[in-house]
């Protein structure tokens, strides 16, 4: 019997778990990714079969999770540890659209849709996409510390998702509404990722080099329609067909990375890669091709990456780190004229380019950090980060600058040893600036717009303070408090316009506690408050009245959990999580002469809670019963779709209050 006990404690154990669950309520949110959307019975089936041959070190493992649900996973592994191995993996991930579409649009899921020409009521459609992936890999250890790894993954994604077309333009002027139509996008994608890696794992030197390939294939080249609204003359939605869908593309990368320990205190690492990406998917037939335009984009993007880092401990108390990264994404796509009409002056006096828009980037990222041990178990860390971007491109509907630079400095004080109180206090300051903004011009060559600096290009000062405290006031209790504040000060305007992004603020507060009542009973609780705020300004369409908005996101979350073994045969666990999130849109004005009838954007509130309970009772050493219960709650006043009707009559809606109960009862069997 002692041998049996030893075996039970030291040998891998297999488990099968099977039973049934009942979902008491239809829902859209709870089942969004697990498929438990419609009420009814669902199978519970999980397995983890493990065998190890102790004489040869050969493992066999078959894992199946959620086999009775639509988000199932299966993985089979067979390996001789330290010698060879292979695996197969299957994974299924649904995504149910949480909004129900009541639509008369026909052909959903296909690349040709029939759209009502006038508003028409339709039946409910539950849009959904589903990913199914299959992967396998092989590894083989070779003499002299080499290892070869091969991997391949194929993922199919099918279904349909929210998409559409619309156009505000149309007679008699720019404010006339053309129409908006619901056109679910057909999804029929295949993504393949594969590669080969040769690793060398020496005592001081490690290398990893190989090939990484990715292919994307879309079975649908374009979305075409029949029907649709003819309101708007030549700008009528019905004429917006075909609509391009994502084109096939591929990339091939060769890479070499490595690490070398010069001595016990100094180590260097590097990675170099070269990637050739292309997009040569043939254009779909069109009626109006520009003269000289090619049959496909001949898209080609080559990316070079060089990264190197050196860490060293020249003194026992001092650590140094230097990191350099260079990435050059060179877009070599040839430029052709695709739209001669773009040269015509539009209703606002603009004219644009009808050429395709290849863009290249070069980034330099450098980091230096010093870490010094002070008395009293304190550690002082200082760091400087510098990032430089070079971009090609021209201003069109947004401002553009060719380069930006960002310099950050940070200082951190940390208690490093385990005591009753440990903590970290850090401060980061960064400045971003850049080259001059290129001037946009009108059709007649006069400066036009040049009023807003885009958020990713604008000058910015950022300050961030972070505090983390770990406290163990007495043995069974540990408490962790985390606070961070950051302030972004943007110069989002140009030419003193006063427009664009101005400020960003983020505040996060968290408190965690863990209490160990005994070896058989632990409890934990946590609380988080997260706040973000963005201030930005703009001006209305004519008569061009300045306005500003303060966008706030406020979230309060908490969780409580208990796990225990009140009896040697009984394990129980329960936890509750709850989140309440509010979006606020504080606009300085809500009504202007140009566009009467505005209604201020109401706050959006989400409340979401979940209670999980499980209990496992051992009938025998290797046999038992398991109970799972989930109570899920979702409530919102979200208005994203509630006030909206497409020109074709489609409306989207969701149940604004969703209670879901799920109860599962299953048996489990263990063996070795």
């Amino acid at each position, binding site marked *: 019997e002692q041998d049996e006990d030893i075996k039970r404690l030291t040998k891998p154990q297999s488990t099968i778990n099977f039973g049934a669950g009942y979902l008491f309520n239809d829902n859209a949110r709870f089942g969004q990714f697990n498929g438990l959307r419609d009420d009814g019975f669902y199978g519970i089936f999980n397995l983890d079969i493990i065998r190890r041959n102790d004489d040869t070190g050969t493992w066999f493992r078959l894992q199946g999770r959620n086999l009775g649900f639509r988000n199932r996973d299966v993985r089979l592994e067979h390996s001789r540890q330290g010698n060879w191995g292979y695996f197969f993996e299957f994974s299924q991930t649904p995504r149910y659209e949480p909004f129900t579409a009541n639509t008369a649009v026909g052909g959903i899921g296909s690349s040709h849709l029939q759209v009502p020409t006038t508003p028409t009521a339709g039946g409910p459609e539950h849009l959904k996409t589903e990913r199914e992936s299959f992967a396998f890999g092989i590894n083989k250890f070779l003499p002299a510390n080499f290892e070869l790894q091969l991997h391949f993954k194929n993922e199919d994604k099918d279904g349909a998702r929210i998409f559409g077309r619309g156009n505000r333009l149309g007679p008699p002027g720019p404010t006339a509404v053309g129409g908006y139509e619901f056109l679910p996008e057909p999804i029929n994608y295949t993504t393949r990722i594969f590669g080969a890696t040769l690793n060398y794992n020496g005592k001081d030197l490690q290398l990893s080099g190989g090939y990484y390939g990715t292919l994307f294939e879309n079975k649908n080249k374009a979305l075409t329609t029949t029907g649709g609204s003819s309101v708007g003359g030549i700008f009528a939605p019905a004429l917006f067909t075909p609509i391009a869908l994502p084109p096939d593309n591929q990339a091939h990368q060769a890479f070499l990375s490595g690490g070398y320990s010069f001595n016990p205190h100094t180590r260097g690492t590097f990675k170099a*890669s070269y990637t050739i990406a292309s997009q040569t998917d043939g254009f779909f037939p*069109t009626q109006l091709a520009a003269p000289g335009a090619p049959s496909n984009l001949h898209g080609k993007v080559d990316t070079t990456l060089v990264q190197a880092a050196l860490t060293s401990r020249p003194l026992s108390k001092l650590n140094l780190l230097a990191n350099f990264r260079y990435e050059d994404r060179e877009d070599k796509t040839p430029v052709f004229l695709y739209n001669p009409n773009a040269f015509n002056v539009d209703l606002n006096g603009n004219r644009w380019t009808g050429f395709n828009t290849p863009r290249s980037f070069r980034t330099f990222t450098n980091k230096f950090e010093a870490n010094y041990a002070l008395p009293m178990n304190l550690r002082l860390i200082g760091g400087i980060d510098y990032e430089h971007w070079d971009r090609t491109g021209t201003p069109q509907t947004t401002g553009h600058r060719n380069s930006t630079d960002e310099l950050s400095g940070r200082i951190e004080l940390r208690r490093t040893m385990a005591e009753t109180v440990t903590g970290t206090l850090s401060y980061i300051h960064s400045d971003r600036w850049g080259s001059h903004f290129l001037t946009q011009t009108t059709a007649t060559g006069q400066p036009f717009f040049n009023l807003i600096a885009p958020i990713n290009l604008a000058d910015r000062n950022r300050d961030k303070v972070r505090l983390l405290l770990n406290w163990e006031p007495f043995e069974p209790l540990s408490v962790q408090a985390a606070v961070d504040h950051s302030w972004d000060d943007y110069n989002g305007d140009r030419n003193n316009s006063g427009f664009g992004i101005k400020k960003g603020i983020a505040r996060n507060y*968290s408190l965690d506690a863990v209490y160990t009542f005994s070896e058989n009973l632990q409890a934990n609780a946590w609380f988080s408050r997260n706040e973000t705020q963005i201030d930005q300004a703009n001006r209305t369409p004519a008569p061009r009245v300045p306005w500003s908005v303060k966008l706030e996101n406020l979230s309060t979350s908490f969780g409580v959990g208990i796990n225990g073994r009140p009896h040697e045969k009984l394990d129980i666990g329960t936890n509750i999580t709850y989140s309440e999130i509010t979006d606020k849109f504080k606009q300085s004005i809500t009504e202007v002469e140009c566009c009467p009838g505005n*209604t201020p954007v109401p706050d959006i509130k989400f409340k979401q809670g979940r209670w999980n309970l499980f209990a496992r009772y051992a009938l025998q050493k290797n046999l038992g019963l398991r109970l799972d219960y989930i109570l899920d709650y979702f409530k919102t006043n979200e208005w994203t779709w509630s006030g909206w009707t497409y020109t074709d009559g489609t409306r989207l809606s969701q149940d604004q209050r969703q209670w879901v109960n799920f109860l599962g009862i299953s048996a489990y069997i263990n063996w070795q």
Partner: protein
Amino acid sequence: QEEDDSEGEAPDIVLRGDGKCTKCHDETSDYPVFAIGKTKHGTVADSRTPTCTSCHGESDQHMNNDDAMPPPPSRTFGKNSTTPILERDQACLDCHQGGKRMNWIGSAHANRDIACTSCHQIHTDRDRVRDKMTQSETCFTCHKEQRAQINRPSRHPIREGKVVCSDCHNPHGSAGPSMTVRDSVNETCFTCHMEKRGPFIYNHPPAQENCAICHNPHGTTAPNLLKVRSPFLCQECHEPNSHQSSLGTITGAYARNTLARGCMNCHTNIHGSNNPENVRNEGLFQR
């Protein structure tokens, strides 16, 4: 790295030469160790697997002491360990320094005094951080903002264990920013969203530069993981010409910029359009 410590009096139970340890550290002790036999470390047929002393050191003072509370082993890994973190990690790195862990030394985690055992459990057959259903709980012990964000209405299926932190981040360090598994943010996103890669005839500049300019992958209240709702998000870059600078409103003509897909009601191919037909606003992603 073979070691033979099998000269002890007690028989080995799990690892080579573990008798001198397991004679005390059985299942009744405060520090039971038998479960390591269920793990890859316990596969003694693999000559690379460690002994107790490979990781914990020779621990002579610990073993040659009959006190009820002997001094700790030479190298310990628990939360009250006094072994320097570098020394603790070196016990792991002696074997696990290659491949995806090559960049550990110098990584943000290593520089923040995170030890391998801060996240990994060694003496158990179910390392929580290597299980998709429980991994995020380990990450959230420090990344609390993300713990709250994954419960937002627009999110990845992290709670369901279908997308996990390590699908996008290599916690052991990488050549990418924020320890992304690929060399850039976008290349990481493309592993699942490759349809966004293009290049297109007409490219939306921020989509090529960094997906995270518009999206927060950890969860948002705006649809499609957008950081801010339309039209406010678009107005952070676009010039106030005519309709694009409208107020946010849920009624009136300009509700078209706020409701439903907002600006994307018209600019539907927002990541880029590959439509070669040359008549109506392809360059504005309307087709």
